[in-house]
């Protein structure tokens, strides 16, 4: 099968022309993102995150393992993600596409390497037992900006997840079932969110936040910024694409600072809403 056909000439010309007038096809402003819809499943750490037609499902599960000899005091976090043709017919099975490499590396950087979860708090018995958290990201549909959606789903899943309480008495370890004792949330250092901006060949056209798939296909470069609401950058990634003035990069970073605060509020609110419904059931 040949590579997916690129957008037609009229589509390209029209998109560039309308972006010049700061009009987007879905009626958004250039720096407006699609409001994410977060749906929580019956299990803790199960999140369905939708931004427009882009949908990602993330789930966390934990189990006890023996820690690696190099880090006897730290828990383990692994992230599994894959882009299958299920998300969009543009993707093929087999060899990892560039998008998949970008996604996997970005999730790794944002969720694991930026120390979102306090790994030492996942230690149960030094050198003997630690928690191993598995975060699985399923990309259900890609209608543009899969990256931000997957990062958001991942971080929300981690925040939503609660691990069973564990009691250690000497050598004995008791894991309490959630019905006996309320499970406890993970100790998180911070909550990073990822924002992707698309640039277009005509440098006078403003950058757009959260590009749709057409915008993404026709863009001449993406700038992804991951940061938390405390103004700490975790990842800045602009791998090639149109050259930007350094001031423009700083301006976009400042835009992202504002967006991170907004998004953080939305996420906290949704998590609280969900938790309030759960408290009734559990007890």
């Amino acid at each position, binding site marked *: 099968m040949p590579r997916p*056909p690129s957008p*037609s*000439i009229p589509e390209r*010309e*029209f998109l560039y022309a*309308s972006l010049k*007038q700061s009009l987007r*096809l*879905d009626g958004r402003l250039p720096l407006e993102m699609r409001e994410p819809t977060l749906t929580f499943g019956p299990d803790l750490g199960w999140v369905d995150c939708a931004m427009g037609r882009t949908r990602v499902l993330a789930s966390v599960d934990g189990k006890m393992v023996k820690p690696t000899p190099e880090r006897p005091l730290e828990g383990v976090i692994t992230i599994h993600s894959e882009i299958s043709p299920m998300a969009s017919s543009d993707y093929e099975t087999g060899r990892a596409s560039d998008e998949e490499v970008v996604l996997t590396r970005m999730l790794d950087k944002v969720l694991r390497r930026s120390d979102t979860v306090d790994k030492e708090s996942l230690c149960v018995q030094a050198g003997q037992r630690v928690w191993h958290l598995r975060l699985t990201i399923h990309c259900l549909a890609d209608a543009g900006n899969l990256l931000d959606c997957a990062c958001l789903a991942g971080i929300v899943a981690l925040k939503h997840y609660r691990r069973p309480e564990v009691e250690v008495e000497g050598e004995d370890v008791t894991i309490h079932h959630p019905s006996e004792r309320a499970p406890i949330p993970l100790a998180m250092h911070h909550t990073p969110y990822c924002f992707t901006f698309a640039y277009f060949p005509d440098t006078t056209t403003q950058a757009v936040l959260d590009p749709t798939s057409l915008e993404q296909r026709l863009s001449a470069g993406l700038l992804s910024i991951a940061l938390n609401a405390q103004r700490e950058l975790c990842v800045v990634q602009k791998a090639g694409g149109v050259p930007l003035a350094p001031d423009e990069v700083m301006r976009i970073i400042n835009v992202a600072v504002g967006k991170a605060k907004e998004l953080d509020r939305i996420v906290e609110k949704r998590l609280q809403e969900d938790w309030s419904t759960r408290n009734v059931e559990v007890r």
Partner: protein
Amino acid sequence: MSFVLPGELVPAQHVNLKLGPGLLQVSDVKNGSVMSTRAGELKHTANNREWWIEGNSRRYVPAPQESVIGVVIARSGEGWRVDIGSAHFASLDGLAFEGATKRSRPNLKVGSVLYARVSLAHKDMEPELECFDAQTRKAEGFGELKGGFLVRCSLQMSRMLLDQSHFLLPLLGARFPLEVAIGLNGRVWVSTKEPKYTIAVSRCIEAVDPDGGGMDERAAKKFLATLDI
């Protein structure tokens, strides 16, 4: 309204029966000879001549004589290969245009959009297109579509838009002048004076599409009012 599942027999009967998407003629079944191959709503024309199944599919299966909108993918020899959203690319001969000769062929670039008719659709061959009426050799509106924008929708939506009695296009046409070409392969080409009008058309189609917003006439009118045009 009747819904069918794949494999159900369909009571389609007419002296001059014509089967549309989702229906298959079978010979070795005793009572009735038409079977459904997809799930969906069974529909037929008022005179019971044409029958088809309406679903929420977005994947186009080419059928002869249907008008489609395609995008040129590559040149191949004397003609072009065209993406019409089907499983295989369609081929379009360089001479299948009004007034085309070996010396003067239309100048289509890779990425050009065109309005064409499926001239051959056989399950074992790649579909073929033509941009004229084979009898009269006149264009009849087929050919390259320049400018404008390509809106993608469900196949059902494109069939609805072709229905003269559907409310959407008259509603939009009353607000601003627009030019539209509808392909049965779930693609609608729109051209207006201003990008904001084209965006309005695109958003309305998305909103009315049963596979999208699924709005009815009243909701669509309300939605249009919020679009600032």
